[in-house]
């Protein structure tokens, strides 16, 4: 074998080695990225949806309270008016169930304050729950806890 042919063979095997190295390096980088995608569990939309509904529910109760109506509805047992105020204030595709408790957890609101079928609440995956306290009305201290459950239809 001549010297020129030996040098050519060496260059050839060197080039092949570079290709193999490059392929191996690419494989390492690709597998690292694949590993990231496999383990980086993106948050599902469910908690975001619940969080959004909680925000809506709290804002609606807060707005009715700011107008001085919430305490009146709750302490005078004006449940129909409270339900109507909620229906008007919430977006049309949001359904709710509202229960009023005393501070010991005993339900006060006997009639069902609900907008939307029970089936929607049962089948929905994202049910948001908001607690809101009203401390009293006029001169009397007697806290009431409003528990509002919301789903999107």
């Amino acid at each position, binding site marked *: 074998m001549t010297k020129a042919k030996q040098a050519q063979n060496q260059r050839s095997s060197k080039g092949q080695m570079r290709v193999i190295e490059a392929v191996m390096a690419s494989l*390492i980088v690709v597998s690292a*990225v694949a590993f990231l995608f496999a383990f980086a569990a993106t948050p599902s939309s469910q908690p975001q949806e619940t969080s959004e509904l909680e925000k809506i529910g*709290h804002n609606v109760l807060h707005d009715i309270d700011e107008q001085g109506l919430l305490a009146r509805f709750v302490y005078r047992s004006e449940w129909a008016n409270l339900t109507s105020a909620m229906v008007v204030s919430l977006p049309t595709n949001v359904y709710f169930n509202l229960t009023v408790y005393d501070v010991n957890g005993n339900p006060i609101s006997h009639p069902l304050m609900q907008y939307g079928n029970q089936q929607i609440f049962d089948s929905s995956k994202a049910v948001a729950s908001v607690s809101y306290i009203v*401390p009293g009305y006029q001169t009397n201290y007697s806290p009431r806890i409003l528990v509002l459950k919301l789903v999107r239809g």
Partner: protein
Amino acid sequence: MRMAREKKGQFIIIAALLLSIMIISISTVIYGTVTYYRQERWEEYVTIVDSIKTASCNLLQVGLANYTQTLNQSVLRGYFNLWMRDVRKAYPGFGVDLSYNLASGIRSAYGVSLNYSLGLARTWNQRVSFSASDATVNIDIASVGLKGYNFSSHVLLKMNIRDAVWYSKESKRYVLIYISVDKEGPEAMINLQKSNFGVKLSGATQAFSMKRYYSRTYGYFIYEIQISSIDALPSSVEVTLQDTRGIKTVSYTTNIQQSSE
């Protein structure tokens, strides 16, 4: 030559490995940072704090309404003590702890100085009368390490007898009282009804009619109270107001103008 080639090969693979580690590390940190807010469910705690804050302000109204109707100076302190206990019951498992500081001594609000005692103050039987309550509330939520979130809240009812005039024009003799009412903010109260007011002239209760309108003369929202068939100039005018929140105040004046126009 062989050694040199092997070293070069190892270098590329090691570089690729290092690059992979860097990608994974940086991505993990970035992912953790951007999703931290969502994982912690801040919304729940923000709504709890907001709910307690609003309710504490409402408690000041309830306490002030009770005080102005019963003159029980310690009512607000009693209500806040109950409130501290009941908030823990309302949010079990969150480690909510509430403390309060009721205003004491002279404090200025909306350009007037009020002398508070146990968070309550009133200045009645003057031309401009006030009823007010003021407290600072501190909230701790142990479950999220929230400590020392505090806010001040105050409630005010202010009534001002702008003018009281006795008109004596031939056979028509009547008294007109011009009143403005403000609440905290300061914000003019424009939703009051006749049933919210009571009027006494020279110490005697009177029947009256009422109009409400924006007055260009005063540049304010005015309640105009008219008492008919008053034959003589009254010695005093006393107006009692109980607003929609149940808060009461009493304005009084002996400065009554006389007009025959």
